[in-house]
């Protein structure tokens, strides 16, 4: 289905009627979606570095030049090399007591802190909640996603990484 940039913008901003969303979901995908999506996101961020890969809500992998790629929040905060776990550069709050968990869930609906707690990861710049983990005590910080940027660009998109080889 042809999804033009204006339609994609509306889809992203949740302005499309449900029937149209459903039609987009059911149709074959538009081959150039990635470039259209990145173009929209690029217009919306307040910084100039080219977005190489959208990386979840608020985060992006951007090209810093000379083959350096970092994870960056839309507020401008940078969170390290894309091959590292950005969470290690974030702020964290751990909900590990019944009282802390009870701010989110009613009594008897938040599990037991001995079994697992909630780890909230915030952007140090804008304090947006970027990820939540629900893990037992002592679990390593989860490295959710390590993209193969080179493979994606060269082998799948058929072009070089915008900021030079990583």
């Amino acid at each position, binding site marked *: 289905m042809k999804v033009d940039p204006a339609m994609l913008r509306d*889809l*992203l901003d*949740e302005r499309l009627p449900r029937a149209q*969303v459903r039609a*987009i*979901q059911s149709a*074959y*995908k538009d*081959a150039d*979606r*990635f470039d259209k999506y*990145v173009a929209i996101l690029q217009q919306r961020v307040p910084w100039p570095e080219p977005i190489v*890969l*959208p990386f*979840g*809500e*608020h985060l992006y992998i951007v090209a810093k030049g000379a083959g350096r790629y970092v994870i960056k929040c839309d507020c401008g905060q940078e969170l390290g090399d894309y091959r590292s776990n950005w969470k*290690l550069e*974030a702020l*964290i*709050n*751990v909900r590990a007591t019944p009282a802390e968990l*009870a*701010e*989110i*869930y*009613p*009594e*008897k*609906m*938040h*599990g*037991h802190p001995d*079994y*697992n707690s*909630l780890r*909230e990861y915030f952007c140090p710049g*804008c*304090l*947006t*909640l*970027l*990820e*939540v983990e*629900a*893990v*037992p*005590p*002592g679990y*390593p910080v989860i*490295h*959710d*996603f*390590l*993209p*193969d940027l080179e*493979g*994606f660009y060269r*082998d*799948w998109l058929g072009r070089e990484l915008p900021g030079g080889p990583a």
Partner: protein
Amino acid sequence: MSARGAIGWEGQSLLAMLERSEQLLAATGRYQGLEELTLKRSDPIRYEKLFSRLRGGLVSARETALNISASPIVKEIGELCFALYTPEGDSVALSTGIIVHVHTMSDAIKYMIRQRYEENPGIAPGDIFTNNDAMIGDVHNADVQTFVPIFWESELVGWAAGVTHEIDIGAKTPGSVPIGPISRFEDGIDLPARKIGSHDELWRDHVLAGLRGTRTPMYWTLDEKTRLAGAHMIRDAVERVIAQEGVDVYKRFIREVIEDGRRSFQARLREMTVPGRYRAPAFSEVPFAKEAQLPSYARRDTLMHAPLELRITREGMLELDYDGASAWGHHSCNCTPSAMQGAIWVQLTQLLICNDKVNDGAYLALRSNFPPGTWSNHSNPQCSTGIAWSFLIPSFTGFVKSISRALQARGFVEEVLAPYGLTANAFQGGGIDQYGRQSATTNFGLSCVGGGAKMILDGLDYAAAMWNPEGDMGDMEMWEMIEPFLYLSQRVKPNTAGPGRHRGGSGYECLRLAWSTPFYEMQNIGNGYCFIQAGLWGGYPAATGYRHNIRGSDFLDLIQARAPYPQSEPDPGASELAAGIAGRHDFDIEATTLPEVMAHGDLYLSIYRGGAGLGDPLERPYESVMADIAGGFLLERYADSIYGVVPGDPQATERRRGELREHRRAKAVPVREWMKSERERILELDMIEPVQRMYAESMRLSERFARELRAFWELPEEFEFPVATPEVELSKAMLAGNAAEGTREASP
């Protein structure tokens, strides 16, 4: 070889055909070594029509045959599926329904071929076979499969197969997902790939054995007829296609369509995802320390670790790896590779191949690792898999989460989903029903829990099941006919959905009154101690559940006195049921329990879970939060603490959200700083035994996991959790024994 001679193509045995097929795949990477899809290329319309006719035959078989069944979970809920296979057991096409079994049935056919069923007991036109053995190819005993060979002249041209989910499987405890078994000898009726009929008729001894083996004989026997009728309809459809198109075209088609499925899947991966490594561990619990009737080795609490790692390679392969998973256990939640591979199907068809040809082609484009000795591949012939779903469902929450990261990176925001809800509670039991008859039930209200939040929409409320794309809770009136429990209420359960910019789909609750039964064993099955999986990008996990069972209640006295009575429990922190009903309240987070008797007048609250959230809750629109309160999805006091919403005042909401962000700044600490204290906690072993045992099992079963854990926390090289892991040692001894004997029992 039987007197009939080989039944494969061109005089080959089936085993020779299977081995040739596997050799060609290994050598070329392509199904049957096909380079060109000549039929598709030369006559694409004919090719598509062929697929449509076979697919239509399968869907028609399902929709027609289910009317034979009397079981509500088959007839109303649609817990059945049909599929067509090549002679070697590769799926060509499938119907709608519980498509997890497309691959499990493939495993069962290949088992029969490898065990030389062609020679003994023989495979002839009109024969009927069955299987429900998870080590051979299944999830658990309750999923019963029927196979019918399809012949054209003297050659086997394929297999028609069907599966139904039985409402009771005659296990140690009642129901279709029995929580009671601690070994496979308690899992119920056992049908390890057996021949059960000839000349299109079921053998009487098999029929009678089934009637005697289950608590629900009528459902059992009608389900069997359902499967057989559907399989025969598929056979008829295939024979019609061959009569019109010619057998050579049919043979070519079933080869090409699987290779087409493989190529199509790889193309879809390239089109919609990003190569790389994705991780999303999940957890679940088996709280059995309280269960006094269990033997000592099973009477303990267990935390399950499912460290899902998904890798998408540059070459377009999908690799699913559970290296680091914790051990199997003396409970019924263990899985086999066949079950795990089946679950991949359910996920792929709903995430990546939802609008293309679905068959074993996709299977050929993925690799999986389910390490022996872990719960994901117990490799222990004595191990129970009665409620394998109890681990299978949580463990695959990471799959949807990981694929969604890829979908968002490519811009397919309309497809992004946060993790689905756990399909629990299982309102399940058995005993004497309201008609004085032996009965059992598994209420499929659990097939309508909350779906995961989407990137552009809230999750589906009380309408989703991970394992059945067509989730349906059935009618209360129908359940009341087969269960000696009346519905006092069925309504939205507030705060079950995981919060987020988009919240997860909501769960719901039912309050049931035991009615006219002197004895009905009831259990609870679900998560009460731990969340199974967090949401995406700031979305929180769905709430955990709890149990509230009231025995010896004064409810009927209240009715007699025409006094008002509570009908629900929107807030367990201020329970009207606890305050308004006298009796023995089991009201706690023990959400998984072995059966205990209930009788006329007792009450059972069944809580169905929500889905996980997506995005920072402080970004949820004010109007959406207000709608949640008005709709009963959110208790009003949580509008502030989760969402920063001041009801009735959008301006004050903005100020409040600013305050909460500052509160985050004041409370949060740099991760690296927090890691120092968490490291000390590990070194001091400041965690409960089940958590330590989970880590110890994972470390002893996976050198890589042990190495990574020690490296992450900068622990000494010799660091270990000093707890016993008897199942790990047992597995290692068994696997070593298997290796010494040169058997392949561990990997069916």
